[in-house]
């Protein structure tokens, strides 16, 4: 056994999860819920990659370097395994730790580094959106991208719009908005909708002076760097929380990371405290008792794809709760399938086909019927659905804004 609080070789404190390992009966229920395995038979599955390997490692006292199957890099971190386990084991925590140890070729490493630092590129590119869009979307760049191992799909465009925040100073209701990379750099109208909604509801809303939450970093194996970011974000956001602010985010992956990963994956001592103060935008709206009943329904039908990282928060589907109250007469809530994009995953050349195969039931569901609206909270789910169905996808807040603020 290792001593308490053992940390080393890029591994962080995981004591609480080791205890949960004992609850794994190897029933493989997680295995049946894994979207990767269903489409790629060679994938060893969450049970094997998670608890089984971890037990082996513990038995060997961490002296021997275990062989990490390189197929682990196919894990989308959708966390459906965590939700499926009848005994509370979380295979994804072990998977995220071990994914950092998968051996990659130099080319893959460079490509992953580029993808993982999308926040940094976004910071530069969004200052010169027109130029960067031109630079990113031309045949020559395509060729370069292909060479470095990027999937043949469109990268999200950079947004030119400016965010407008008015100030409702002195309001007792205070919220700080963690934008996340997608709403900050790629689609500012989502952010603007959130700002408008919360200001209309009398909130003093501030935008957190922070960049990336770290999801692209740790899901590409840059654990140490992500931890640094996590510490900084936690410090800043806790300062807000202590001053009575609620932390909100419109991106499910950012929200989940702030709620869960800082506490569980990085075991930050303040992670628990931060988690308690973080809300998904719609989660807070529901909690505030916002009601849209009585609103005349402007849309006949809508398809709402529930992002995996929203499902993983265990808060139900607050957006659907609001939408179902009158925005649409017929709301199809689909949470059975992962869209396959998984952040930067779907942008990798070797994962491209798999990514589309995983998402195919979602695309089929949307194409089968002529929905007036297609909705999802997550930026990369949106990209995946738009690219594979040709339908325009909106964030639920973009629809709600019209009804709450009126425009």
């Amino acid at each position, binding site marked *: 056994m290792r001593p308490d609080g053992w940390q080393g070789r890029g591994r962080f404190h995981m004591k609480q999860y080791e205890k949960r390992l004992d609850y794994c009966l190897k*029933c*493989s*229920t997680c295995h049946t819920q894994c979207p990767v395995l269903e489409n790629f038979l060679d994938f*060893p599955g969450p049970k094997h990659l998670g608890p089984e390997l971890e037990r082996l490692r513990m038995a060997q006292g961490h002296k021997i370097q275990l062989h990490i199957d390189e197929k682990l890099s196919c894990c989308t971190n959708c966390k459906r395994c*965590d939700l*499926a386990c*009848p005994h509370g084991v979380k295979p994804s925590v072990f998977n995220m730790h071990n994914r950092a140890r998968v051996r990659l070729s130099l080319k893959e490493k460079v490509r992953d580094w580029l993808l993982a630092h999308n926040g940094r590129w976004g910071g530069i590119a969004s200052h010169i959106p027109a130029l960067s869009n031109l630079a990113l979307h031309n045949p020559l760049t395509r060729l370069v991208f292909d060479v470095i191992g990027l999937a043949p799909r469109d990268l999200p465009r950079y947004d030119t719009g400016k965010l407008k925040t008015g100030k409702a100073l002195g309001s007792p209701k205070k919220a700080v908005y963690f934008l996340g990379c997608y709403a900050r750099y790629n689609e500012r109208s989502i952010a603007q909708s959130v700002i408008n909604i919360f200001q209309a509801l009398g909130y003093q809303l501030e935008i957190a002076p922070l960049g990336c939450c770290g999801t692209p970093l740790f899901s590409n194996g840059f654990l140490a760097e992500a931890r640094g970011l996590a510490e900084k974000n936690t410090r800043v956001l806790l300062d807000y929380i202590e001053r009575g602010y609620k932390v909100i985010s419109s991106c499910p992956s950012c929200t989940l990371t702030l709620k869960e990963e800082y*506490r569980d994956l990085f075991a930050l001592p303040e992670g628990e405290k931060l988690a308690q103060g973080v809300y998904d935008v719609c989660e807070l709206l529901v909690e505030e008792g916002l009601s849209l009943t009585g609103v005349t329904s402007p849309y006949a039908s809508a398809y709402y794809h529930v992002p995996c990282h929203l499902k*993983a928060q*265990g808060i139900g589907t607050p957006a659907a709760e609001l939408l179902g109250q009158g925005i649409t007469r017929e709301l199809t809530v689909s949470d059975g399938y992962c869209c396959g994009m998984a952040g930067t995953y779907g942008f990798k050349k070797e994962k491209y086909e798999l990514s589309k195969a995983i998402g195919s039931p979602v695309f089929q569901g949307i194409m089968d019927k002529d929905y007036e609206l297609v909705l999802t909270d997550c930026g990369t789910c949106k990209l995946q659905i738009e690219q594979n169905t040709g339908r325009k996808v909106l964030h639920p807040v973009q629809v709600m804004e019209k009804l709450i603020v009126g425009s």
Partner: protein
Amino acid sequence: MYDVIVIGAGLAGLMAAAAAAELNKKVLVVAKGRGNLYSASGYIDFLGYYPTDRRQPLENVTRALEDIVENNPQHPYALLGKEKIDQAFRFFLEVMNRAGYPYGGSWQKNRIHPTAAGALAPTSLVPQRSCLDLASYQDILVVGFREMLDFYPFYAADNLREQFYLQGEKKLVRAVWLDLGLSQERELNSYDLAVALEDEAVRFRLAEQLRVKVSEHTLVILPAVLGVRKWNRVQDHLQRMLACTFLEIPTLPPSVTGMRLAESLMGYLEQRGVEFQLGYPVTGALQEGKRCTGVKIATASGRIQVKEARTFVLATGGILGGGLRVKPYSITEEIFKIKIEMPKEISHQDFFAPQGQPLSRTGVKVNSLLQPITAQGEPILTNVFVAGKNLTGYDPFVEKSGNGVALVSGYAAGWLAGKGAFSYEAV
């Protein structure tokens, strides 16, 4: 505000949700994960052996039930009675029909089905496609797959032959290994094979190897691998290619037959408007006197979400499901903190003792309305109905009555909760 909140997503919980939904109630199912159906056979055993020291499967189930009602008043079957049992089984058959995964059989008559080890075991309801009469097949071929773990066709065939012989039946029981040409980079289990067989090309390979071995009179016994979600299409296709009859046997977890039952039932319930919130545990309940007003659900943020309802069904699966916690000198129900009587003798020296292990009979004591009661018979909570393995008074392992009790008590609990019935007079 919900009408009914069901805690637990095993067979008892899903049945309760179905019964309440049938009454057009607003239902929420919360569970810390997916239920144990994924590790179970998907067969419904009503009562296999009774009295439990019998070596032979029970033949006259109706008479055994009368015996239970008379001599074993704490048994869930005795509490609910024959009429409710009959209703529950009819309802289950009807619901599974609507869900597109029909079942066959009845609780009154035990069917004898082969297990993966080639034993012949009693059960009551099986999926319609497996609802066959073994006696009418003289030529049996047991098929195993080289890629797959945990199913050995020659071992199963030897056992089957011997059992038929002991019953005085002479049957031709053969066995064969097939190779589906799947990648063997890792060991595959029945779920993996079932996914692979949803691919037409793999089915052709199966049919090609099998064609020379079978005639239209052959019964092909194979592990349950014929499709997961598209099982209908997979089995129809094979049936068109080969004239023989197929019988799928439930396998070790992950069990494809259990999964089909769970997912078709859940899919049906979602269509009926039942909501599911799976993945995080219910950590406690809000109580006002003898009424429960809401349950506390943990979420990723660590904040507790409270969900309110008029009535509740507690189907958290007993000791094995994590609904009851056993400590050295106490047993407690986890959500409502109901104290449970510790058996005087905790375990029997003989692990396979015919009377069973005393601990497997432990559970929450209830009245005939399935409300939890004290040792004196006073209801502890009036709007909470207990179902499934949380109940005391029966031993699912030696009686082979686990899914039967789950089905009947789940149905009854859901029905009572849906009616908002705190006494039968109110119903």
